[in-house]
């Protein structure tokens, strides 16, 4: 057929619907009349003739419907009419529609929100060219989980000898300068970088220039600053190039401003240069540099790992047990939050499944109520395919409305999340185009999933029976299909709740288990120091004066922060052989004499340090119980000797460390985190650090008699009275510091917990809806039973028992699935086994109770049916 004719009829069919329909109707009717006349001519009576004609025609409406399906543009027409009909259907039962849309909105919204976060944190490529070829380079000792950085000589070996990399750069972050001469002294965060760092990333200066290669060999007086520092601290000064900053007492001239490098070292104020000429940089054992390399195209990760391992082993004194390991840079940046986000993702996907099950269940119940309508429509000529399409359209409308509401919810919650988030790479979290596509995808998926249940239910439809009774024969609760849906919904909700329960238990354990110190009434602040000679005078004076302040019960210094972090040190023994290739590493901390008193730790044996443990006294050490048990099991370590070698950047060690006598055993303190197991740890008196590295800065701990914050001002004044340009950083109560340290755990608990709560609520609604519906279907039967002598109690039991069977199956399946699945989250658990019986039992009981409550209301209604009313029903 020529195209223009097609277009003409398409338009006519679309826009002159009424005329086309009237014409069709007349056409079919006249055909019927012609047939009748024909039959009369053939000798039939008029009545007979009409009957025969009708039989031959086979139903006016069916014929018309078949013609309509042949029309050009019919699909558009029928889709539009499906939509109109669907909207009308939904408006007819506003309660159902509201519940279904809200349920879908919660499911789709939660998934879109979580996707937005996951996309920008885990999935989105790094904002550098060829970002998938960037790798962090680590060394790993066989059989140990700890990753080892590189020393400058190792880095130089890699760079000179390897052929796998286009670029390789070294970085050293997490150190500071004191910036003075601009109001109160401030601490600025520095990251030292080797020459290749920015060229590797393809990032060029925003203003000014970078350091030249030859400038890397002298500790010059020029600095490159970060965009953040320029904007926030220097007020976006357009004439910043040439401005002089006083950093650690040295005048440094700004030569360049870098653009934002959002994903790498976001806290950096100063991009300092890595000077390989420093003596402490020349030591092969000082492995504190972070390395990043850009692989050449076509070189695999394994090839590069092998090459670097070979190069590493060529170096003098390198252990053959150590091999080089490459980690994609993006994974490296997000490794701390990956598992937290994964559990949240799994939880939210379960929520979506539960949402689908719930809405499918609602639809199934509704479609059963609609069976008379369906029967009428089928007998009026609606084909089965057409009907199924109608139902899918209806459900897609429902899903779309749910999806739009969900998107609004997601937008709001992501904005809220952005404000509280402490995640890496989260600077640009938002509902963007990919999130929109994701929302569209799951909306359509949900619509189709949800439509499956009721539309397949039509295929077994007994038309005649439906037309005759107008009401469905009632069996027990629901059909097998709806039972299945409910059981799976309940079991999914159980799995989610068990996961949330385990996270909650872990969190409670982290908060409740004795941390070995008392965080209340404890104020802490960090004081950095760039001159160890001055520090040797300043710090003892400060502690002495601070402990004399009114309202202070103890004051102390420590390199570590209990519950947050601790430095590391290696041990040398004199009572056993020392394996230089397998050196024991422990947590270690330089402290002043009242440290344990200030943080509230308990002495187990021996003594704490006192003011006499100074540089001139015999070298001493206090160990924790864990260290005593792992290295002197069953022995009293008091009087034993160990040498302690601190590990860290900038250490300049000459000769072997000296041996120290163990003078005390302290009860275990959770040093690195409340949710981390206790490790062997030791403590050494700060005045006995002959290398003076400890004096680069200390945490000051103040145990107060009143509220911890009340002394903040006094302490600040005291510090400045002793040293006017001393920066005071992160003054906080210990409780606040611990709260912050637990933030990622709290976040995942909050998210998984609220998803589990949602799942529980949805299942309760599902159970309630199912029992209520079944009861309404069986009113007649209950009336009959009661008329025949059944007691209220019996009816109540009958209904409750029916509901309970489904719940029990769901809980059973859910608990079984949890047993199999929770081990995947064991890395997130603390002091709780993945199959913690208490959690499992509580969740099972909780579901049983909620289900009973949900069954009880409709069951009570059933039990109060008046037999006479019920028997007259319909």
């Amino acid at each position, binding site marked *: *057929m020529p195209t223009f004719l097609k277009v003409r*009829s398409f338009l006519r069919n679309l826009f002159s619907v009424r005329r086309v329909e009237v014409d069709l109707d007349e*056409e079919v009717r006249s055909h019927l009349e012609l047939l009748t*006349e024909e039959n009369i001519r053939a000798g039939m009576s008029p009545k007979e003739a009409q009957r025969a004609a009708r039989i031959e025609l086979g139903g006016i409406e069916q014929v018309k419907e*078949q013609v309509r399906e042949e029309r*050009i543009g019919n699909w558009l027409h029928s889709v539009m009419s499906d939509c109109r009909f669907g909207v009308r259907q939904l408006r007819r039962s506003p309660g159902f529609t509201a519940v279904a849309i809200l349920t879908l909105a919660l499911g789709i919204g939660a998934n879109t929100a979580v996707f937005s976060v996951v996309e920008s944190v885990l999935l989105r490529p790094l904002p550098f060219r060829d970002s998938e070829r960037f790798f962090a380079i680590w060394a790993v000792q066989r059989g140990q989980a700890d990753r080892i950085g590189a020393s400058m000589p190792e880095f130089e070996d890699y760079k000179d000898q390897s052929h796998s990399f286009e670029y390789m750069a070294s970085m050293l972050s997490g150190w500071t300068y004191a910036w003075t001469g601009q109001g109160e002294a401030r601490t600025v965060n520095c990251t030292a970088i080797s020459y290749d760092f920015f060229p590797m990333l393809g990032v060029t200066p925003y203003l000014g220039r970078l350091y030249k290669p030859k400038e890397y060999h002298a500790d010059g007086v020029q600095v490159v600053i970060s965009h953040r520092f320029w904007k926030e601290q220097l007020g976006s000064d357009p004439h910043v190039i040439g401005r002089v900053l006083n950093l650690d007492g040295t005048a440094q001239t700004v030569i360049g401003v870098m653009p934002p490098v959002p994903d790498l070292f976001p806290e950096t104020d100063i991009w300092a240069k890595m000077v390989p000429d420093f003596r402490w940089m020349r030591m092969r054992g000082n492995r504190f540099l972070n390395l990043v390399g850009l692989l050449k195209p076509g070189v695999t990760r394994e090839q590069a790992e092998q090459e670097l391992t070979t190069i590493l082993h060529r170096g003098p004194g390198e252990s053959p047990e150590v091999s080089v390991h490459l980690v994609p840079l993006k994974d490296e940046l997000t490794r701390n939050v990956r598992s937290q986000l994964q559990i949240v993702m799994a939880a939210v996907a379960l929520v979506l499944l539960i949402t689908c099950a719930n809405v499918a269940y609602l639809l199934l119940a509704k479609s059963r109520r609609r069976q008379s309508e369906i029967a009428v429509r089928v007998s009026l000529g609606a084909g089965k395919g057409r009907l199924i399409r109608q139902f899918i359209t209806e459900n897609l409308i429902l899903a779309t409305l749910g999806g739009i509401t969900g998107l609004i919810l997601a937008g709001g919650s992501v904005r809220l999340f952005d404000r509280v988030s402490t995640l890496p790479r989260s600077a640009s979290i938002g509902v963007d185009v990919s999130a929109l596509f994701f929302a569209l995808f799951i909306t359509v998926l949900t619509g189709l999933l949800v439509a499956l249940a009721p539309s397949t239910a039509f295929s077994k439809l007994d038309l005649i029976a439906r037309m005759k009774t107008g009401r469905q024969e009632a069996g027990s609760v629901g059909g097998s299909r709806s039972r299945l849906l409910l059981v799976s919904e309940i079991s999914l909700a159980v799995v989610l709740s068990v996961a949330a329960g385990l996270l909650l238990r872990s969190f409670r354990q982290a908060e409740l288990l004795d941390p070995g110190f008392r965080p209340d009434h404890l104020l802490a602040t960090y004081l950095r120091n760039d001159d160890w000679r001055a520090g040797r005078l300043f710090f003892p004076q400060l502690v002495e004066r601070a402990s004399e302040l009114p309202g202070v019960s103890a004051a102390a210094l420590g390199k570590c922060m209990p519950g947050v972090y601790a430095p590391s040190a290696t041990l040398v023994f004199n009572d056993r052989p020392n394996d230089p290739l397998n050196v024991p590493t422990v947590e270690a901390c330089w402290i002043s004499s009242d440290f344990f008193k200030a943080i509230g730790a308990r002495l187990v044996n021996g003594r704490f340090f006192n003011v006499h443990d100074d540089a001139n006294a015999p070298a001493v050490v206090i160990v924790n119980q864990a260290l005593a048990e792992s290295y002197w099991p069953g022995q009293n370590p008091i009087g034993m000797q160990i040498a302690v070698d601190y590990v860290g950047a900038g250490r300049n060690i000459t000769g072997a460390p000296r041996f120290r006598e163990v003078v005390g055993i302290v009860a275990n303190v959770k040093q690195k985190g409340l949710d981390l197991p206790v490790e062997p740890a030791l403590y050494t008196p700060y005045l006995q650090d002959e290398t003076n590295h400890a004096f680069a800065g200390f945490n000051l701990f103040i145990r107060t008699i009143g509220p911890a914050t009340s002394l903040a001002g006094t302490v600040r004044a005291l510090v400045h009275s002793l040293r006017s340009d001393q920066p005071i950083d992160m003054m906080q109560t210990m409780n606040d510091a611990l709260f912050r340290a637990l933030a990622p755990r709290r976040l995942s608990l909050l998210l998984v917990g609220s998803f589990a709560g949602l799942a529980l609520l949805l299942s309760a609604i599902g159970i309630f809806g199912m029992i209520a519906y079944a009861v309404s279907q069986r009113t007649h039967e209950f009336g009959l039973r009661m008329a025949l002598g059944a007691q209220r109690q019996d009816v109540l039991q009958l209904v409750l028992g029916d509901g309970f069977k489904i719940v029990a199956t769901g809980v059973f399946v859910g608990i079984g699935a949890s047993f199999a699945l929770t081990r995947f989250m064991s890395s997130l658990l603390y002091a709780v086994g993945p199959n913690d019986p208490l959690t499992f039992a509580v969740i099972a009981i909780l579901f049983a109770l909620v289900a009973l409550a949900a069954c009880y209301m409709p069951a009570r209604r059933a039990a109060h049916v008046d037999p006479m009313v019920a028997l007259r029903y319909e």
Partner: protein
Amino acid sequence: MPSEPTTLLQGTLDLLISKSLVAGEMLGPGVSRRIQQITSGTFVVKPGSLFPGLHRMGEGWISSFWGESENNRRAKYYRLTRAGQRQLEAETKRWGRISLAIGQALEAS
């Protein structure tokens, strides 16, 4: 009339409807009867198939107009258009080729 009317092959209905209209314009029942007649009763086209067929070919190959029946009733006549005639010739040739080929294929051992 055979007791079991044969099911029409996809596409052959349109061919038969066109063929029945070659002689001139016709009313709906006339088309049915004509098809029954020219196929010696092998195919009985009920209105449920006839109307969709007529409408499928309407606008192009078949045109229709309202006229009067023998009993002076308003009734719709169908007529093969020029394009429809050309289409019928083309389809007839094609059909010949197909039936020959299928016939040979089925007889081949």
